[in-house]
C-alpha cells in the first residue's frame, strides 16, 4: 500500500479533496510544459561553457552550473523530459501487464494460481533489488530501465483488477445478463469494462510516479539511462562529487524537479482512485 492511498480513507479528512480534473490538469500541464520546454530548448544551452564553471544560481543561470560549466536548469529540463518519456512508456506497459494478468486470473482457477505464484515471486524480493536484477538482465540502458520498471510494478494493480473482475463476474446482474442470452463478449463490454476502466486509469497514473522515481534510482547506481544522456539519476550521481566542493545547487534542481512531477501525479492518481472507488461515483 502506498502512503498516499492511506490518506483518503475514512473520516477525519481536513477538507474534501479537489476534483480529479483539477489535479489532472496540473499533472498534464506539467508534463506538457516539460516536454515543450525540452523540445524548444536551444541545444547550445546543454553545452559545456568553460567560462561559467561552478557558478552559483544567479540571473544568467537560475539553477547554477556544474563543474563542466553546464547549465543545471536546462539540463534538469532535458532530464525530466527523458524521465517522463521513460516513465510513461514503462507505466503503460506495466498497466497493460496488470490488466492482462488480472483478467487472466479471473478466468479460471488454474490461471488464477499461475498469476498468484507470479505475484508472490515478484513481491518476494525487495522491489529495488528486483529492479536491479531485471535491469542487469537486460543490460541496463534506457530500454533496460523501461523493461525493469514495466515488469515489476504490476502486482498491486493486477490484484485489484482480479478482485474487481471476480466481483463483477459473480454479480447478479451478470448472471441475469447471461440468462437473458447475452454473449460473454457483450457482458465483458457492457459490465466488466465500465467497472475496470476507472481502476485501470487510476492505477496507471499511480504507477507513473513510482516509475520515474525508480528510473532515477537505477540511473543513479549506473544501471539506468546512459550517462551521456541527461537524466536525473545520472545528474545526481555526478553531483555527489560536486557537493563536496560546496556546489549544493547542482543537486537541488534535478531532485526538486523530480519530486514536483512525482507529487503532481501521485495527487492526481489519488484523486482518480477516490473517484473510482466512490460508491455510485463516476465509474
Amino acid at each position: 500500500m502506498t502512503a498516499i492511498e492511506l490518506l483518503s480513507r475514512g473520516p477525519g479528512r481536513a477538507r474534501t479533496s479537489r476534483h480529479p480534473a483539477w489535479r489532472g490538469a496540473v499533472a498534464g500541464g506539467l508534463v506538457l510544459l516539460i516536454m515543450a520546454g525540452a523540445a524548444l530548448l536551444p541545444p547550445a544551452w546543454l553545452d559545456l561553457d568553460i567560462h561559467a564553471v561552478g557558478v552559483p544560481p544567479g540571473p544568467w543561470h537560475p539553477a547554477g552550473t556544474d563543474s563542466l560549466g553546464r547549465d543545471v536548469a536546462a539540463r534538469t529540463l532535458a532530464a525530466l523530459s527523458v524521465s517522463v518519456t521513460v516513465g510513461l512508456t514503462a507505466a503503460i506497459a506495466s498497466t497493460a501487464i496488470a490488466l492482462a494478468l488480472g483478467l487472466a486470473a479471473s478466468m479460471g482457477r488454474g490461471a488464477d494460481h499461475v498469476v498468484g505464484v507470479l505475484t508472490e515471486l515478484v513481491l518476494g524480493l525487495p522491489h529495488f533489488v528486483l529492479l536491479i536484477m531485471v535491469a542487469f538482465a537486460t543490460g541496463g540502458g534506457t530500454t533496460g530501465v523501461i523493461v525493469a520498471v514495466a515488469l515489476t510494478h504490476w502486482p498491486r494493480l493486477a490484484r485489484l483488477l482480479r478482485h474487481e473482475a471476480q466481483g463483477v463476474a459473480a454479480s447478479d446482474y451478470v448472471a441475469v445478463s447471461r440468462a437473458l442470452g447475452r454473449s460473454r463478449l457483450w457482458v465483458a463490454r457492457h459490465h466488466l469494462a465500465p467497472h475496470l476502466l476507472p481502476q485501470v486509469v487510476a492505477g496507471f497514473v499511480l504507477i507513473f510516479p513510482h516509475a520515474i522515481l525508480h528510473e532515477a534510482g537505477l540511473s543513479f547506481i549506473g544501471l539506468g539511462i546512459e550517462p551521456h544522456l541527461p537524466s536525473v539519476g545520472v545528474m545526481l550521481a555526478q553531483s555527489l562529487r560536486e557537493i563536496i566542493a560546496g556546489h549544493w545547487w547542482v543537486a537541488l534542481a534535478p531532485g526538486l524537479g523530480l519530486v514536483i512531477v512525482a507529487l503532481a501525479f501521485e495527487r492526481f492518481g489519488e484523486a482518480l482512485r477516490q473517484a473510482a472507488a466512490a460508491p455510485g461515483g463516476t465509474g
Partner: protein
Amino acid sequence: MSWARPLVLGRLVRLAWLLPLAAVGLFTLISLAPIDPVQAYVGDRTALVGSDQRAAIAAAWGLDRPATERFGAWLGGVAQGDLGRSITYDAPVSEVIARRVPASLALIGTAFVTSFVVGTGLGIAAATARGGVGDRILRSLAVVLSASPGFWIAILLIAVFAIALGWLPSCCAAPPGLTLAEVGIGDRLRHLVLPVATLSVVGTAPLILHTRQRLVVFLDGPAAQHLRAHGLTERRIAFGAGLRHAVGPALNLHLAGAGELFGGSVLAETVFAWPGLGQATARAATGADAPLLMGIGLSTLLLVFCGNLAADIAARIADPRLRHPRP
C-alpha cells in the same frame, strides 16, 4: 501460542516452493544479461589481457558451459553451502555476504526503530491535531517525503550537515585510516546518523499517514468519547489508549515493509559509501558479478519472508481476533 504453529508451518511450506522457483527465475534473469563478466572483470586492463587469457578466465568461472549445466553446478554447490565465488570481491559469496551483513543490519535496524518511533509519534500527534495547522503540515510533509527519492534526500543531508555545517561525516562507517580497534563507539554513532536519517525517511512517511488515519477513527469513536467523559485530556487519550490501539497495525505495516528498507539501503549505502550489503548489490550489478547477485537475491528473499512472517505474528499478538480466522 497455539495459533503460531500453523502460521509458521504454512509459511515454511510456501517458502519451500517459493525458494526454488525464485532461484530458477533469478538464475534465468542473470544468465540473460548481455554484459560480459570477463570484460567487466578486465575493465581498464583490456590492453594487458589477450584472447587466450580471456578464454582461460571464462573457463575458470565455468562460463564456457551452457546455462543449464552451470545452474546444476551452482545448485550442487548451494546444497553443500557453497554459493560460488564473487568476481568483484574475489572471495566466496557467503563470506562477502557474512562480512557485510552486520554493517547493513546496524543501518537497517537503527533506521527501522527510528522510523517506527518517529512515524508513530508524528502520526498520533497529527491525529490529535486533526483538521488543524499541525495536522496539515505533518500530512503535507509525509506526502512530499513519500514522493522524494531517498538518495536525493541523502545528498541534501550531506550538503547541509556534512559540507555546509561540518557537523557530521559524509562517508563510510568509520573514519578512514583507522583500524577497527581504534574506532570508538562515538565515531561509529556519528557515522551512523546521516545514513540512518536517510533510510528512516523511507519508512516514516507511510507510518505517519497510516497511524494518523487509524487514530482519527479511534478518537472520533465511542471508546474515546467514553474516556473523554471520564475527564481524560485529549493528549492522554491519544498517547494512552490511542497508542495501544494504533501500535499493532503500525508495527504490522512497518515489518511488512522491512524488505523495502533494504531496497532503500542499496541507494543510501551507495551515497554514503557504507560498507554493507546494499553497496555490494550495486557493485555486483555494475560489475556483472552473477554469483554475488544470486546470493544477494536469495538472501533478500529470506529477509522479505522473515519480515512478512514477523508482521503477521505481530498483528496476531496485537489483535487476538486475527489468531483464529473463520474458515
